[in-house]
């Protein structure tokens, strides 16, 4: 069992690309769920829209990457409007069902053979659509230390990604502490009261959905760019659920929760997976109990179990405040 290797893998994942993607996805959800009380279970749809908006214009239509990013933002606003107009009047649990359905619509259309030519079908799109971004990379040699290891491209994604996360978090912090943010929180607590004060709740909810959705699609940009590939099945319901896990782990309605949550989440996942894998390959864990291919399944079982236990025993997460959001709003 190579302990240094496990540490290196784990720490690299804690600060790595996946942590950035989940931090961004969870920041979006924090806007929706943490501050406005919208139970959006379609965040994966926003990520998918973002990811495909990066890949399709560049690969299929030969546009510039920077234009594609703008298209992505535009598309996610459009998706938020489409999603919001019919659903924002619904109660929390109905909203959950409809948003999850919308995200599945996006995924199934993306993977269907009907649109194979432009969206790539179930294999998605793979290609050098991030070239313009990686050409700017000043750290092409990557980073190799005993405890951290990134290749050149990953290092560039990680650096720009965390800067982006910091910027967005800062903007979020300003927004939620403004009068506008207080209205949002009031809607979460009692929307009838807010309505009686003459605020247009529907409009505020829509703004929340759009802002969170755009942040979600930025997570999709990072997802697509970091892998130079978009695969429809990566944007399934599980992605949304794990983004929620990240958010709840850190503590909903806390500005820094998504960052902390994402780091802890990936730290635990990769650590457990590496230890299990090392145990299986060195036969410490017998083969009849867990095969090499089953390590990933055990990992997902633990993730599901973790989400349950977290919700039961510490619904406010690590840094959350039970008074701020106790998650037992009347459904």
């Amino acid at each position: 069992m190579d302990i240094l290797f496990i540490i290196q893998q784990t720490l690299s994942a804690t600060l790595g690309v996946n942590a950035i993607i989940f931090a961004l996805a969870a920041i979006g959800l924090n806007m929706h769920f943490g501050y406005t009380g919208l139970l959006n279970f379609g965040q994966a749809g926003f990520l998918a829209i973002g990811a495909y908006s990066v890949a399709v214009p560049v690969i299929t239509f030969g546009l510039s990457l920077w234009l594609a990013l703008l298209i992505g933002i535009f598309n996610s606003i459009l998706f938020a409007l489409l999603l919001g107009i019919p659903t924002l009047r619904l109660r929390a649990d109905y909203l959950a069902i409809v948003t999850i359905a919308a995200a599945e619509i996006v995924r199934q259309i993306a993977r269907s053979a009907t649109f194979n030519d432009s969206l790539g079908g179930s294999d998605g799109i793979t290609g050098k659509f991030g070239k313009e971004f990686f050409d700017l990379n000043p750290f092409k040699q990557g980073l190799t230390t005993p405890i951290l290891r990134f290749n050149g491209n990953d290092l560039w994604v990680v650096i720009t990604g965390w800067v982006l996360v910091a910027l967005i978090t800062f903007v979020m912090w300003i927004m939620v502490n403004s009068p506008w943010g207080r209205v949002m929180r009031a809607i979460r607590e009692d929307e009838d009261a807010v309505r009686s004060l003459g605020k247009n709740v529907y409009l505020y909810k829509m703004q929340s959905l759009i802002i969170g959705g755009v942040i979600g699609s930025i997570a999709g940009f990072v997802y697509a760019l970091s892998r130079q590939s978009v695969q429809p099945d990566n944007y399934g319901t599980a992605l949304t659920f794990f983004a929620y896990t990240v958010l709840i782990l850190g503590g909903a309605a806390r500005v820094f929760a998504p960052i902390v949550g994402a780091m802890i989440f990936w730290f635990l996942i990769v650590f457990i997976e590496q230890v299990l894998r090392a145990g299986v390959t060195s036969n410490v864990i017998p083969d009849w109990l867990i095969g090499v291919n089953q390590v990933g399944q055990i990992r997902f079982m633990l993730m599901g179990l973790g989400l349950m236990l977290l919700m039961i025993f510490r619904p406010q997460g690590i840094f959350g405040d039970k008074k701020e959001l106790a998650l037992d709003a009347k459904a």
Partner: protein
Amino acid sequence: MHPIGDALKTDVERDLNFASKKISARLILLAITTFSATAGISLIATPANAAETPTKLYGVVTSSTEQPLEGIGISIEGPEGFSADVTTDSLGAWEVLIPTKGTYSATINESDLPEGQALTDPTKGTAKANVFMLGVELRLLFPIGPGVEKATMLERSAQLTVDGLILGLIIALAALGLNLIFGTTGLTNFAHGEILTFAGLLTYYFSAIAKLPVIVAAPIAVVLSAFISGFLQDRYLWKPLRKRGTGLIAMLVVSIGFAIFLRYFFLFLFGGDTRQLPQYAGQAGLELGLVNITPKSILTTVIGVGFIVFATLWLLRTRMGKASRAVADNPALASASGIDVQKVIRAVWILGAALAGYAGVIVTVNQGVSFLMGQDMLLLIFAAVTLGGLGTANGALVGSLIIGLFVQLSTLFIPTELKYVGALIVLILILIVRPQGILGRKERIG
């Protein structure tokens, strides 16, 4: 590092992922453009001493009943004027060695297919393969089924209506329980689909491993489903949570965690493939007027209708059923008027799990069982109850039939792989016009 959504891929893809991870990034971008997963992706990549060995394209052509088809012509075209024609051997197998990288397309000669067999999707007569590196083996599939495409519009409509009614029944069985549980406890149970999977797996294990006849295995599975998924699940998971005063949204998230845990636990035990029960596997269909339907399908459907009738009578006629409606309406008042609320909830869980378990049995007997079975059904179940009105029993029935029929009949006009998309879009459209659902009360609009 796996991207997280790999979870949803089939086992084959997962194994490939793992394999590609093992041999690190050396096996790059072996992309093969075949069909959607519903048609069955099969991609077996064997990295060998790359440059020298040519790439092998191969496949096995089988009929809808898994019998090999001999003498089917397949023509392959590729870059630099490459072309080859082969026919399948007595095992239905064919292979072609290709010398250079590039995009190849294999076309099956449809006129060689025997009577009654056709491509399930006429657009898939040509399979494309992108060969990025040599020395690998790529498997191409042609989805072949009974020759539905040759049927007339009228016959297809009739067949799809029957299929839709059966699907509607399956959804209704699961939706009734979901709705009753929601009505009495307020829980939106995202782990409801796993009740179907669990009962399906039990049926499979009793029937295929313990060698019991299906007719015995299925009732045992339903009873165990009622006991384990119903009674035990409520007793040891949800009842304690209710006692703790856990909020409804918190419970919803708990059910999501529980569903993920169970799903991968089933994958861990059962593997990622879809398996058929050995008994009645290749049962021939009966021609009844315009439609073709298997005897096992008729029997399971009739019993299913019996279950629905039983559940409806239970709700309307028995003391417990009436009590459950009272609890759904106002738990505090019901409790004050002497109804044992916990007992009602227990009864509802047991009934709901038995119904959902039987839905799982129907799917398993007719289409086979996989660990994703429940998840695949869950969205349709939710669509049905949302459409009908969450919390109303008859709403669930109406919603289920609409969704079932719509999913099947929509394939007359849209590609089969998009049929669930159609159903989900209808759900959203109806919610714009009537947010409370077809039979729902206005209270749900927030």
